[in-house]
């Protein structure tokens, strides 16, 4: 791919419709993560200190409201698209041996599905205090 000027990280691809979708999806999820990820990091490092964050804290304080569970779950979904498509781009850039590329991408996608499953499970199954 030709980089037209040094202004852009990656020129919008032409030719492959799939690559154009990926290009737009990276930017849309990127804007969403600007809000979601920075808010998440700020809340859990500036408002609360890691020293306070026991498993008890997560159950009784951080995740005792559906809103914050939903917020963190939305963050997980967005990061799974953005981060995993980002690493896909890195693999496509550097790994040219077909078999190695195939296996690395397979490991990448399986790890994404795995984190989606365990992340969703913990959001859904952790008891909400007082919600019985």
């Amino acid at each position, binding site marked *: 791919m030709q980089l037209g000027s040094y202004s852009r*990280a990656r020129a919008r691809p032409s030719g492959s419709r799939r690559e154009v979708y990926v290009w737009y999806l990276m930017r849309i999820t990127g804007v969403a993560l600007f809000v979601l990820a920075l808010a998440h990091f700020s809340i859990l490092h500036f408002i609360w200190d890691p020293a306070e964050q026991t498993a008890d804290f997560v159950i009784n304080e951080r995740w005792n409201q559906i809103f914050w569970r939903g917020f963190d779950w939305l963050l997980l979904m967005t990061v799974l698209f953005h981060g995993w498509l980002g690493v896909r781009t890195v693999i496509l850039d550097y790994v040219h041996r077909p078999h190695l590329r195939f296996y690395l991408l397979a490991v990448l996608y399986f790890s994404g599905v795995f984190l989606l499953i365990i992340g969703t499970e913990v959001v859904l199954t*952790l008891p909400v205090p007082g919600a019985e």
Partner: protein
Amino acid sequence: MTRVPTLLRYRGREGMLAWAFHRIAGIGIFAFVVLHVIDIYLVGGNPELYDEVLAFYASLPGRLLEVVLGAALLYHALNGLRIIILDLWPSMTAYHRVLWWGTWAIFIVVGVPGALIIMRPVWLEWLQALGLA
């Protein structure tokens, strides 16, 4: 021909550095996300182990790593916004150097106080040891 690492070979000035930092920060954040989803899973599966992991996060090496994580996150977020601005309004390319230094100005203004808050228990202890707090 001698092989020169790609990171050093292509002389794209600011855009090249911005790209390299963006990629390195992105991979670092990716690695932390994998760790972090697994550690949150422990809240339900093994709360005692979760508390041990969080005790590491609250330690001095843990906090230093959080400062690095926060820096990677902030840089990647700000530079990502810079990229989107240039993609949406190509005429802004004329001011790309302003955007690049603007990114670093916001990075320092937001990042330094953030790092101080994360490291607060460490330097508060030092101040107390010196009898200053």
